[in-house]
Each structure stands twice: as C-alpha cells, then as structure tokens.
C-alpha cells in the first residue's frame, strides 16, 4: 500500500533527500520547500521504500500536490 508524501504548502522544491528505492524510516528528511522566504522541511510519513518521486529540485508545487509515493512496510 502506498503512502503519499504531500506538499503541505505552495512553494519551490529546493532539495530532495530521498531516491527511488531508498528504504526510509518515518520522520526521515524527504524534501525542502522554499516559500515566503522560509524553508519548510517535509518528512517521510511512514517507514517503507520510496516507490516514486514526482517532483525535482526547482519544481513549483501547490498545496496538496503529491511529491512522492512511499510503499509502506
């Protein structure tokens, strides 16, 4: 079953800390979004394997956009 990593706010992706195939734990660093002069770090929502990454550095995201899919353990 896949868990969606969602953008909690609109902004620009400035860092991606995960790769497809990575085994990840809940609360690992996933992505950094820049918005309104601040940087909001998004964390992996659950333990599992990174199945798909839909955004890359430089991409603009809207609130609730799917950034990545994590296949839950």
């Amino acid at each position, binding site marked *: 079953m896949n868990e969606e990593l969602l953008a*909690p*706010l*609109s902004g620009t992706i400035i860092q991606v800390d995960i790769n497809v195939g990575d085994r990840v*734990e*809940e*609360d*690992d*660093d996933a992505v950094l979004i*820049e*918005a*309104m*002069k*601040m*940087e*909001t*770090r998004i*964390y992996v929502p659950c333990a599992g394997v990174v199945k798909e990454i839909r955004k890359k550095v430089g991409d603009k995201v809207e*609130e609730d956009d799917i950034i990545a899919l994590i296949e839950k353990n």
Partner: protein
Amino acid sequence: MKHYFEKMTDFGGPLKKGQIKRGEENEARLKEVEKEIHKAVDDIRNGGFPDEKINARGEMTVWQRLACLVDPGTWCPLHTLYNPADNEEGTTNVIDGIGKISGKWAIIIGFDNKVMAGAWLAGQSENILRVTDLAKRLNIPIVWLVNCSGAKLSEQHKFYANRRGAGAPFYRHAALNQVGIPVLAAIFGTNPAGGGYQGISPTVLFAHEKCNIAVGGAGIVSGMAPKGGFDAASAEELIEKTRHFKSHPPGSVKIHYHETGFFRYVYEKEKEVLDGLREFMKEIPAYDPKFFRVSTPAEPKFPTNDIYKLLPFDQKSVYDFDEILARLVDASEQMEFRPGYGPEVYTGLCRVDGYLVACIGNRQGYLGKGYPEYADYPGIGGKLYRQGMIKMIEFVTLCGRDRIPIIWFQDTSGIDVGDTAEKAELLGLGQSLIYSIQGADIPQMLVVLRKGSAAAHYIMGGPQGNDTNAFTLGTAATEVYVMHGETAAVAMYSRRLVKEKDAGRPIESIIDKMNAISEDYKKFSRPKYCAQAGFVDEIVQMADLRKYMTAFAGAAYQSPKSICPFHQMALPRIIKG
C-alpha cells in the same frame, strides 16, 4: 479554581529519532555561539586586577562578594557584556543580576572593584538605570555592593553630566524609596565624590569598618585651587607637596557611624557585612509563595536541553514553537487562549515554578489556506496579521485585568505590509497592542528566541517598553535588526542599480556596497553585539532559559502592587468557555 490550574492540557512530545539525528549539527552550531559568549563573559570576570591582588589587601572581589551573598543556584546575571560606550575596559564596571538573598528575590548590583577600583565609566549610568527600572517593575529590593572610587577622570565628559548621566541613579534611588522599594547597600573600600553618593543614596547602609563615603576624596581636599595651567615650576611645587602629603580619606566609620549615624550597621570583616545583609533580607516583606502559587511546582515533562535540537540556527528553517514552550513550563501543560484564531501567535496560560504566567510567542511555518482572511496571499509564521494582533490585544488586556505577568517569546520578521495590510488596520493594531501593554501595568519579560525585527520587535513586549519590560534575554540564535541586511541593501541601492545600468556604467561598485551593508547588518545584529549594545539584557544558554523564567515569576509574585484573586480571574473561564 484548582480545577483550572492544577491540571492543564498536556502539550509537546518527546523528540523523534529523525529530530534527534538532524538536531545534532544544529546543537553544535548553537553551542559554538554560546562558547563565544561564555569566553566574552570570562574575559569580564577576569578583567582588571587578579583576585589575589585584591584579596592580599584584605578585600573580596565583587564576584566573591556575590558568591557569598546570593543563595546558591539562584543567580541570573544580566548586562554582563553590556558596554554601550565601547569602553576599552570592556565593561560598564557594574555587575548585576537577579538572585535570592535569604530566600527573597532582589536585584543585586555591585561595582567591579577589580577594574579601576570600581570607578564610574561611560555607559554605567545607563546600566544602573536599567537595573532601577527592573527593580521598580518587579517591585523588589535593590541590593548594592558599593565600592566606587569615583569618576574615571580622563573620560568624565562621557558620563558625569547629562540627563541620564552618573547623577541620575541618585534620583532613581530617591524615586524607588518614594514608592516603597528599599535600596540596601553594603559599603566597602574608599568611596569619594560619586562613590560617596552611591553610598549615601540607598535606604540602609551596611558598612565595613574600613570603608568611607565622602563628598570629596583626599586628593581633592589637598589641591583644589586651579591656577590657569601647569608649568615646570608648579609641577615642582606639586611634587614637594605630594611627597609630604599625608591624609586619610574622609568619611570613615569614625565619622559616619559614630558622628552622623549614616551607617546603620558596621562590621569588622567583609563577610560579616554580607552576612548582616543576608540577615536583614530575611525580614524584608514578601508574600510566602503559597499565597500566589496555583499548583505545586513541576519540571517540564521533556528536557529543556531538547531546545538545542528544536530551535534551528538557520533563520530560514521553520519549527514548532509549542514544542519549545513545552520544555520551559511546568509539567508541559498549558491553556491556550483562542486556538485557531490568529494562528501565527500562541497566547495562553502556563505555570512556572507553580506560578501562573501568560505566554505569548510567534508560531512558525505555513498558516493554512485562506489565511490571512483579508488577503489573497498566504500567511507565514513569524509575520503578524490582523487576527494575531487582535488576539494579542485581547489577551494582554485580560492579563492586565487578571494581574498575570507575561513572558513573551519573539521570532518575528515583522508585520504584514502593503495596502491590503493597511486596509486591514495593521498599523493601528500594532500601536493598539503597545497601548494595551502599557495600560496593563504588569511585569513582563521577553526572550528573543531568534529574530526580533521591524515593528514587531517593539510591539511584542519589546524592551522599548521601559515601564513594562523588566528584562530581555537573547539566545545563541538571536538576531535583532530593523530588517534583514539584504532587504536593507535592496531598499538602499535598487534605484541606483537601475540608474547606473541604464546609463551604461558598471554596477560592480554598487554590488560591493550592497554586500558591505549586508555584512554590516550581520555584524550589528548577532548575539554578542546585541548584548554589548544592550538590545538584550543578557544572552543566555538555552538550558538556562527556564531558570530566568523562574526568577521572573518568583520576583513578580513576591510583592505585587496589585492582586486579582484566582476566583475572580476572567481569562481561565474565557479559555474554558
């Protein structure tokens, strides 16, 4: 009212594995700055003559006197690095802070007798005036350790005269006495002229048998008549006179205990003076803590040291303010006022050492869809918007009514700007908050957790409220400036860039100027500078924040000027609904 206060709502949670891991580098960066501050503090402590030289004269240093006087574990130093006039000595030459003496909170201040025998230096009167403001705001005694050789004569123009010059503290002592706040003075060493007035202006004088206080010193008594200048002949005459001049400094115990009676008590040994003060302080009026405590004191559920991992050193990183507050207040419990409204600020009631305090702080991060409600752009924590400002006005006003001291926590980039924000009345709301703070007339303290900038630094309980803000602390992450340096550089040079570019002239020199401004802003906004300039009263370690909050709460409730009975408070009932 115990069902309101004995158990409040739990908040906060233990650090997650990821937080611990990524917090380690952050902790190292914060502690690096704390180390720099600690070194600067050590330099102050070790400044002037070595302790051994002072002790060899049979005298204690101010630091040793403080160690004797203050109840162990209660000392909260303030103004340690304060040096607004950039004295070559690195200090204003007074050491001060809040501490308990025989179980009673007091503001304690002493001349550093290791440095120029405790002389008046530039910036010292400003330091002392801050201390008198603090005592008045908290309504607790000042205890002086007087040991003042008078003016540093070569720099008298920097401090002797002026509205807030060296004589102003004497008026302040009189003003404190007039509102019933005692100024107790332990007097050591030779205190002529300015030192004499430092000695005489307090309420009760505890003297060491070898001390003196006088209008003038022995040197002045011997050579008062100006002759229009010096030459070789007059220098020779002076040499001859000085060789044979023998005089005791006037104003000794013989005069001021046995004749005038200015000294109420005299002691043979320095330690006995301090013991005498400690005995006297036992009798100072103060409410027993049980009168005002709303619950049994309790440590936070989570370690205060976690804050090193929670508060990002990087100013752009967002974090959860509630997690930090949960590590500073009793039992990690609170009662939030108007949750969901004005989400960019936390306002709520907490307990510190069993006393009820109000806490206000900037929340960080994205504030959710549709906020602020008056704008078509999103809101971010750190900024202030209409609802947050209205909420703070309401909360502060009610705290004034309920006589609840306020602890502010700032990490703010300012108030929302632009015509949309102006239509939302933000300019007026900002001043309205200041009006409420001033009118509440309750003790307040501020912790500038990270940024204190723009008007938001003023309106959120800033030190500019001289009547209201008891003291302001900074941390290793503190930055205080009107705006970010790069924003300032853009404001100053963007039009010039356009002009030069349009004229076909090189823009490199303007870019250099912009970078220089940006660097300047960094230099004049960081923790050490903030402490030296007085933007904050002390930079403290994260681990010590709760200690200062405990001192503040205890002092604020020791002898409050007014009382609201618990069962007549409005705020707890408004929160509960």
